């Protein structure tokens, strides 16, 4: 952590991500207005002191909706990355450590998954699972498994033939102990930067899926959902789309800079 803090990108990323996270956390408890409360007399208002980002076609406060939407997007992305990471760690760790036939089979399956455009595969999975927030988490989570498994596998395979692993074996450490207590701590730095990249992909995927209408369902906001609602009023209320887009950009920029800062070590 200390050596990362010297990196300008990392510090900038930490700042942006920190602010975004604070806003999201506050948004869970309190927003200036009820994000779903409509008001017939306050439709499509311009940004002002009372409504920071203006209001939408139902008179709902866009600032409140963006905060809540960012929270929903963040949670979906985090959960999807967590699923991909945990299963990817297990599959990648075992295949990298043991190799052999199981390794060949699992890696060919992951080749197959990676060969399809991810958004297409996610749509197919949604078609099977049905629409909704939780299904999107599962679909994206499964999609992220191969990329994490690959990174973990190649790192574990690299570490497997080092003297410290031989030494651990000589001490009588079990294979699981070697894999999880001796090798895994050494791949954390590589993993951290790929988690940040994976998180960005998850945010973008959630946004595109919800934009296409298969993710978060109305009236609940999410950044993708808000963009799709905003596009109908691009000319009457351009601030709607701009403010939502800005939130997506900040979320991604923050994590992008973090991963950049960690990768440059």
């Amino acid at each position: 952590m200390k050596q990362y803090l010297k990196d300008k990108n990392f510090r900038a990323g930490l700042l942006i991500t920190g602010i975004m996270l604070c806003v999201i956390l506050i948004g869970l408890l309190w927003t200036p207005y009820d994000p779903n409360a409509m008001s017939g007399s306050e439709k499509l208002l311009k940004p002002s002191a009372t409504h920071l980002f203006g209001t939408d076609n139902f008179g709902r406060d866009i600032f409140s909706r963006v905060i809540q939407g960012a929270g929903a997007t963040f949670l979906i992305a985090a959960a999807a990355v967590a699923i991909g990471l945990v299963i990817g760690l297990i599959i990648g760790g075992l295949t990298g450590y043991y190799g052999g036939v199981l390794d060949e089979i699992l890696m060919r399956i992951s080749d197959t998954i990676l060969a399809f455009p991810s958004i297409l595969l996610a749509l197919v999975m949604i078609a099977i699972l049905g629409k909704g927030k939780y299904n999107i988490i599962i679909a994206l989570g499964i999609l992220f498994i191969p990329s994490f498994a690959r990174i973990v596998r190649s790192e574990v395979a690299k570490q497997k033939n080092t003297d410290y692993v031989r030494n651990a074996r000589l001490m009588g450490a079990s294979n699981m102990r070697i894999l999880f207590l001796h090798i895994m701590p050494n791949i954390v730095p590589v993993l951290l930067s790929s988690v940040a990249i994976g998180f960005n992909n998850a945010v973008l995927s959630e946004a595109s899926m919800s934009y296409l209408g298969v993710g978060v369902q109305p009236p609940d906001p999410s950044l993708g959902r808000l963009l799709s609602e905003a596009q109908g009023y691009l000319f009457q209320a351009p601030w709607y789309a701009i403010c939502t887009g800005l939130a997506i950009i900040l979320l991604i920029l923050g994590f992008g800079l973090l991963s950049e800062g960690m990768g440059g070590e």
Partner: protein
Amino acid sequence: MSDRVLEVNNLSVVYQDSTVFGKKSNFQALTDVSFHIDHGEIVGLVGESGCGKSTLSKAILGMLDDAKVTGEIRHYTKRPQMVFQDPHGSLNPARTVGWILEEPLRIFGKYDAPERKRRVLDMMTRVGLDHELVTHKPRELSGGQKQRVSIATALIQRPRFVVADEPVSALDVSIQGQILQLLLNLRDELDLSYLFITHDLNLCYSICDRVLVMYKGQIVEQGPVDEVYEHPQHEYTKALLDAVLK
């Protein structure tokens, strides 16, 4: 009277390169190697790079996964250990010195936490490491300190027999003497026997009791150091000694 710590008979090792399409390309790394090590001895293993020294040391300790090993390896002691050549590689870079030293004790599971801590500090004193280094990572240590940690990791398991695979060749010349002296002192204190692998014939002469000369995967000559150095029998040994003496 002299009890054995290790006996190796007719050991052969063949590396096999297997591909998806079946096995091919074999490499005979060791051929019909036989020797023994007695209690309290330091046995030197000399030979040029690639002659099979490291393969032999790994075979003895059962660290060859991807090779076909035939012959007999009999250990008469429990938990034989190894001091590796390169201390940068043999210590886990993500862990602290304290964790690394405690790990073998955790694996045995015989001692409780305070007793393990006590033993770690005790061993650090023995190998001449400052106690405050327990919280440091290997990359924060000097080469000599790392090799001391690596020796301590091996010896904290109370082995009676240690394979030292060129334990000083990766270190600065100024440090080499200290580490060698440490290994010799520890042999007396902890009642150890060593198989000492080296390509330095002078070093071998000054610390070893017996010597094994290895050439192209075979032991071509073995015997007490004085005898072998003064009356070499095999052509390769003669050439090797000539090259050093001139």
